[in-house]
């Protein structure tokens, strides 16, 4: 007893020093708090008000009903591939891996957790049907994006750049100005759609987050190249194509519309090494192509899933594709788009005639790649391809 009394007196002294109410400790004991609670509060050096908030009321035992939430207790996710670590695909275990065709919860509930019914506001999501935006590989593509991350500031050989002939440098800079804006604008458009996607499709949102971040780095890296070697920024990119993406009224429209540009861009970066004047540019184009290849895989898979789920929406897709084709073809004729490429492909201003021919061939391959991507998604567009693009794949009979 004397030992307890001494302890209690010591506790009271500490409480006084912390400015606790007189008698708080005794009241706390009456309320049913034990030595660990009082000692814990003293150890935490709670101020008077905080201590009262805690100890000056009857002790309410914890509710702990959340502990009874049904879970798949005992289901453990483990890495399928030790090298890759614990991936998002690895945690798609048991019911947690089931992505419903129709998600009905309007709140921000984490898919697979126990709903708090009727107590949470509608978060305003609009995408509840899986086939609207989902693609089977999104979880893998997301982890791939993380494994393949790169940093423009430090992964490119900025110090290796050497002075180039003025017309060449300016052509590169004009191309970079354009590409930087296109990448940035696409990231902005995609970002605006994130709040539309419900939690049923969390893996898709993760993947789109990685796409937005990839595009940010493209915008950054292209701008850096424009400014790194004495050239500077040129004329802003044409605005028709990007404007059409911002006009999309639904995610399927956006995806179909972007399919055209995404195809053309990937084909372009795949062979842009031919335009490069140095290792830095070769690396930059290759990195951009690798990132865009993931996006293209998503686009093809998404379109295929979408068409399968909504066969009645098939014909409608031609409208969005056509709109993008017309705008892209118009931009391909723009002097500030066409001429820098011809100049680079021709090796300088003097070689622009050969450059124009090489560019036509590149454009043809871009259109072919686009049609092939659509075909891979099970969509036949070739017969209805807009004449402005058809011109590139069906050269004049002479």
């Amino acid at each position, binding site marked *: 007893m004397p030992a307890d009394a001494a302890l209690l007196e010591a506790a009271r002294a500490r409480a006084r020093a912390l400015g606790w109410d007189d008698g708080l400790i005794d009241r706390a004991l009456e309320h049913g708090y034990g030595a660990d609670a009082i000692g814990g509060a003293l150890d935490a050096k709670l101020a008077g008000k905080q201590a009262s908030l805690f100890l000056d009321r009857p002790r309410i035992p914890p509710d702990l009903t*959340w502990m009874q939430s049904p879970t798949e207790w005992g289901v453990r996710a483990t*890495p399928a591939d030790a090298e890759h670590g614990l991936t998002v695909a690895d945690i798609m275990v048991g019911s947690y891996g089931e992505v419903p065709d129709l998600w009905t919860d309007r709140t921000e509930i984490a898919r697979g957790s*126990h709903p708090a019914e009727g107590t949470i506001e509608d978060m305003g999501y609009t995408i509840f049907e899986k086939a609207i935006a989902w693609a089977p590989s999104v979880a893998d593509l997301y982890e791939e994006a993380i494994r393949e991350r790169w940093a423009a500031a430090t992964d490119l050989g900025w110090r290796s750049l050497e002075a180039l002939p003025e017309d060449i440098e300016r052509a590169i800079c004009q191309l970079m100005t354009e590409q930087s804006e296109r990448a940035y604008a696409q990231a902005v458009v995609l970002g605006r759609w994130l709040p539309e996607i419900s939690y049923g499709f969390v893996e898709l949102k993760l993947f789109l987050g990685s796409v937005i971040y990839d595009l940010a780095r493209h915008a950054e890296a292209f701008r850096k190249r424009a*400014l790194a070697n004495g050239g500077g920024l040129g004329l802003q990119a044409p605005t028709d194509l990007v404007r059409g993406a911002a006009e999309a009224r639904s995610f399927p429209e956006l995806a179909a519309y972007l399919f055209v540009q995404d195809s053309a861009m990937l084909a372009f970066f795949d062979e842009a090494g031919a335009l490069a004047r140095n290792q830095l540019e070769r690396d930059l184009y290759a990195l951009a192509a690798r990132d865009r290849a993931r996006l293209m895989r998503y686009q093809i898979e998404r379109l295929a899933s979408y068409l399968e789920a909504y066969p009645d929406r098939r014909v409608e897709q031609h409208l969005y594709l056509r709109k993008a084709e017309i705008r892209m073809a118009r931009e391909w004729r723009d002097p500030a788009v066409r001429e*820098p490429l011809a100049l680079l492909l021709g090796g300088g201003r003097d070689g622009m005639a050969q450059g124009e021919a090489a560019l036509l061939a590149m454009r043809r391959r871009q259109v072919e790649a686009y049609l092939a991507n659509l075909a891979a998604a099970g969509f036949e567009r070739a017969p209805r391809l807009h004449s402005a693009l058809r011109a590139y794949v069906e050269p004049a009979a002479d």
Partner: protein
Amino acid sequence: MSATPETPALDLSWLDLFDEPAAVEPSDRGLTLEAIAANGLAAREDAPRDMTPRLRGASARANAHRQGLTYQTKADVWADQCLALYEEAVQRQWSSARDIPWGELEPLPDETERAVCQLATMLAEVEFIAGDVPGQWLPSISGDEFEVGLFLMSQIMDEARHTDVFRKRALANGGGLLAQGAGLGLRNLLDAKDFTEMSVLMHVQAEGFVQSMFRMGELIGPTAADKRIFRMAAQDESRHLAFGVMHLKHVLAETPERREEIHHYLDRAEERSGGGSGDVTFPPVFESLAILLGGGRDHFDEGVAKFLLLRRRQVREYLHRLDVAGLGDRRERLGPALTPFAA
């Protein structure tokens, strides 16, 4: 029929748009956004602007479309450190798959595992919104302040990783996802109608509260993997917070007349006991934290005491950050749910 696209006559006027050559030099941090903002290309209040997708410094096209309304004043969105914060984000990306020692997870007492999983469930929810909010604001940012946009894009990636790492934690050790959060006050982040309102509520307040919790991760996390998750996530949150604090500072310095308006946003948000993603008072979150901090259900009351310490840290650090931003007078009008913790 002849379909070959005609080759128009050369124009080449774009070749004449370039200024005198001015190369920029990489530093030991590589070629950074700060380096390329030299030579008259830094963000400026008085630079000619438009609402087209043009990024700052490019020559304007006479026929460019407007792309929708964007802020036309630098102070509305700017934070001085956003260039450095973006570069830091790129350098410090991590992988929730490979940088967390998942292999070291071992079976925990049931109640501890449930408590970790409850906390992870709440955070998997909160982090999901934290990516949506910056996404929502991207179209409002002018290309004249594109670095702000780049920063927000890096935040979207960070928040994706946070969403996924907490989901992984819930599923990695046999626990699973528990109760959905209720009344976490997340809607108010999406409801913001102004960039500064959003940034103060999300970056400074909500992410600040979350950060104070992550910083106590050494005490909260029962395993090395848990502690590391909190540490890595805290590293990211410190950037998001820094953006918010620096943005607020910029706004208050450039447009001091907005002070009362900003207080008003906080008045409302603080009514919800601190609202936003920092609401740790929701019973499942409060109780799971008390179990983790106390070291088991048997030490629940001890855990509550430590929880109050966490609450105090949250509120004090919140006030300190506001003070740094120039809103030190917040202390005098702090919401009633927070005042007991300001001492």
